[in-house]
């Protein structure tokens, strides 16, 4: 695993936001909720990234923000894939009306532009992170389902599945013992890859005010920049860091996900 360049690269990148998320209290210089200084301060020796509009230390905000950004990203990605795997497996294995319904829904959803749709849904549901997770999952699971469905379709045709039926295996057993174990490894890799995309979507929605403005995710930080006129001030020390952190996280998770895919795939091929 250590030889895999993607893996190493990904781990290095992830280390940064991950440590921020896990041990913010040890890394951050201040409590981000406390007013520690004057507002709109530029970066200086006391505040490496300056302060925000109400005098809170920006660096601490960024560090504490990692936790919630990653959590939301991970939750949304997990729900998406779990839902996608369930639906895709049932549709692929049983076929029939369920399959036709799924294909129809997937086709429609792939046509619609995702971000505007997310915005509409989120504004209908109201603010809050649970809602964001919901919105992200509902709108992205069809893509996963379609991918899983084709995998299941090809496994379903193989001789050992037919033999299992002849032995008397129930559909449940075939699904859980023969089919799902082949799908799970790639699905896990898929979750990791999607965390990045979910984080970007969450940041976008929060930036537009559809997140929870009382929390401190990176998207919300940007929301407050916008709201308090930070952009017109040209406060680059406030504007850039959240974006950079998101970029690092997305890159890192994507690399890790690719590495996982590569690990999972050749082993399956070898087993065959």
């Amino acid at each position, binding site marked *: 695993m250590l030889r895999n360049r993607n893996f190493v690269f990904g781990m290095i990148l992830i280390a940064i936001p991950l440590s921020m998320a896990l041990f913010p209290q040890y890394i951050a210089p201040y409590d981000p909720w406390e007013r520690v200084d004057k507002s709109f301060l530029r970066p200086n020796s006391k505040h490496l990234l300056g302060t925000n509009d109400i005098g809170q230390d920006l660096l601490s905000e960024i560090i504490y923000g990692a936790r919630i950004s990653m959590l939301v990203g991970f939750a949304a990605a997990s729900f998406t894939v779990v839902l996608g795997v369930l639906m895709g497996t049932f549709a692929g294995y049983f076929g029939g009306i369920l399959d036709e319904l799924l294909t129809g829904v997937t086709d429609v959803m792939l046509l619609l532009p995702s971000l505007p749709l997310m915005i509409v849904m989120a504004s209908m549901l109201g603010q809050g992170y649970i809602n964001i997770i919901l919105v992200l999952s509902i709108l992205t699971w069809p893509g996963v389902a379609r991918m899983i469905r084709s995998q299941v379709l090809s496994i379903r045709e193989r001789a050992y599945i037919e033999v299992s039926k*002849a032995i008397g295996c129930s559909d449940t057993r075939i699904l859980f013992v023969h089919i799902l174990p082949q799908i799970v490894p790639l699905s896990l890799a898929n979750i990791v890859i999607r965390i990045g995309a979910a984080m970007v979507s969450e940041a976008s929605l929060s930036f537009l005010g559809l997140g929870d403005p009382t929390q401190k995710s990176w998207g919300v930080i940007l929301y407050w920049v916008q709201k308090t006129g930070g952009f017109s001030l040209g406060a680059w020390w406030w504007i850039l860091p959240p974006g950079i952190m998101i970029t690092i996280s997305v890159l890192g998770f994507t690399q890790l996900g690719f590495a996982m895919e590569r690990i999972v795939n050749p082993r399956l091929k070898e*087993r065959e």
Partner: protein
Amino acid sequence: MIDITDEALLRVENLKKWFPVRRSIIDALLARKELFIKAVDGVSFEIGTGEIFGLAGESGSGKTTVGKTILGLYEPTDGSVCFKGTELFGLSKRKMKEMRRKLQTIYQDPYESLDPRMTVLDIVSEPLVVHGIGRSREEREEMATQALEDVEMSPPEEFLKRYPHELSGGQRQRVAVARALVLGPEFIVADEPVSMLDVSIRAEVLNLMLKLRKVSGISFLFIAHDLALAKHVCDRLAIMYLGKIVDVGPTEDVVNTHVHPYTEALIAAVPVPDPAAERTKVIIGGEIPSPMNPPSGCRFHPRCPISLDICREKDPELIEVSDSHLVACHVRARK
């Protein structure tokens, strides 16, 4: 000759399996006739206890479909399959599952019929798990070990933890047989069980089947496309063409007297591993027509060297031409 008991173990009567061909919207709008692939179109035979019954034919004959329908993998379009006196179709799921304990199968491809992610132990004991046999894991392991011994994989302990990709083709096929045996079946559907194995090891698996028949009285439906092999393994043989049985009886009779013209053509076409053998062969021309549109009357008539007018009009019935040997031909099997 095996004594066939009065109560046949398996009785197939007028079995039909048609597969609908997908229609486009235009076909439906224009109300065009629905097309079917008539894979099996009226097949009847009986298999007794301890008998090896061969079902031979070329591609499109329907022999594999017959096997799969008997196993309950397909639902018949018409006709019946009776196993030990019980009609298999319309049975509740639970009852069918009970039947499956006695009715097992071996597939053609040793590389595909075993789940690559399961160990040999898991594969062979899966039927036990599915049917709730064996009160503990140890007991099931014992039964699986015994099955491996029965298929002459020794020492069995060495193979239990291995994966299919670590075994040779012949070994994999033995594992497949062990899996079929572990429930103590009475009947096994063997679909071309050796055609994908190297020639020098085919006999191992076939002799194993013969031993099982002798020792445990297991009957086999041996689906074959190698007639030379079928001749040396099967007690009785049925020749299928485009979904129907055209010739059936004791193997030696069917092969040596080759009454039906298709049987004759097949036997003439089989290559003989002896360069000095006499070759007076007339190889018939043409190819097998599509099962979607079989010829009228006797399905073989377009290629038959002795066909008459009636062959084009009427489908011949199976008529006894000698002791237990039935042939469906207007010309050579008359009442």
